[in-house]
């Protein structure tokens, strides 16, 4: 994303409704700042995240995608994040195998009580993506 002629990373954060979305709300309630590059999409559970969505985001120009869910063992639906963990592990490994920067994707477990952690994670992720620069390897240039 270009802001005043300078490149700014676009970050899509998928947050599960029960823990991480609530954690992100708590970040707001506690007025803990993180960069505005992060845009949150609410999904019911981390296991709702289809790899299609991640690739779609990269294709449309996202520079980083992060999935936040309940801590393993705390899933509102009991087992959802366990499936998400396997799926993302394999998907990330595949992206790395294809030479796409491993650092562009991340999974973090953020509970509804971890507002501070949410802010810290987002600050760190944005910093990391900024260092990494623009997503070139997985963009769909027709969408630019």
């Amino acid at each position, binding site marked *: 994303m270009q802001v005043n002629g300078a490149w700014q990373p676009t970050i899509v954060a998928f947050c599960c409704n029960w823990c991480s979305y609530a954690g992100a709300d708590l970040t707001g309630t506690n007025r803990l700042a993180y960069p505005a590059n992060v845009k949150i999409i609410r999904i019911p559970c981390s296991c709702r995240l289809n790899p299609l969505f991640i690739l779609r985001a990269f294709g449309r120009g996202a520079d980083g995608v992060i999935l936040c869910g309940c801590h393993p063992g705390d899933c509102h639906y009991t087992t959802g994040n366990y499936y998400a963990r396997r799926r993302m592990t394999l998907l990330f490994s595949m992206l790395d*195998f*294809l030479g796409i920067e491993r650092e562009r*994707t991340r999974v973090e477990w953020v509970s509804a009580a971890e507002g501070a952690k949410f802010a810290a994670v987002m600050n760190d992720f944005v910093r990391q993506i900024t260092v990494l620069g623009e997503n070139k390897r997985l963009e769909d240039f027709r969408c630019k």
Partner: protein
Amino acid sequence: MQVKEKAIELLSSGKVSRVLGWKQGEFCYDLTPAVFESAEEVERSFVFSPLAGANLAKYLIAESRKEGVVAAFLKPCDSYSVLQLCKEHRIRRENVYLVGVPCEGTVDPDLLRENAKGLTAVREAGGTLVCDTLYGEKRVDLSAVLLERCKVCKSKKIVVFDELLGENGEENPQSTRFAAVEEIENLTPEERYAFWQKELSRCIRCNACRNVCPACSCETCVFDNAKLGTDNKAPASRFEEQYFHIIRAFHVAGRCTDCGECSRVCPQKIPLHLLNRKFIRDMNTLYGQYQAGADEESLPPMLDFRMDDCEPSAARGGKQA
């Protein structure tokens, strides 16, 4: 010609109403799957040789839903695919009669043609291919012209059959099928990216890989689904190619038996099987050995979990920069 005779016997005895096998295609080196409805038809055009590389499993999805029993000849590779499809309730087991055929490897027609220029006819004689060419007869060792998947054959065991022609083989735990994956993993991320760009940019989205794949047997593929907005066939951007192949590999992960058909049929010779093998290797190392299609009961790793699975941050598809 045990196979052809069995086909005739099955049809003439009325045990089955159709036989799924191979017949000659456009060229002598090109055997293509075919359904035979009478002994005469079999007599006329049924062919079985090391050139019969095509996996017949996928055809059984539609064939097993028709009236009557259909017989199919299964090489070890194909038997894994059939069992996997039975596990997924795609093949109606009661409507198929499976004849296991041992396999010493199938031929890569391109390699054969390189070894025997001006090929006009081939026949097999005890591990040697006797080729008639425009320049006279030429003998080619079968082992010299095998497909990559056969060189690193994972198993000669036929896992599902009603009848077996000859002896059943063994699994081959010594197979070096992951060596090529490891080789890529050992490249730097930049080299890996360059490698896959070189390969995937040749993709013309002909969908041959998808159409031949026994695991890719969805009623409607997500890439054909206009309602979902994921349909796209134009290889207009490198994103499209990566998108298609990553998602395809992901969708068959845990279901892919590593039959190697995708790479066999790719007109652009893209080593697509490496993507599937990468997933298989990751699942084996991270979640324990698993062979899709080896049985009907076990839970595939993608539909299972352990409390102490590794975190995605541990996922490494290769050497880091």
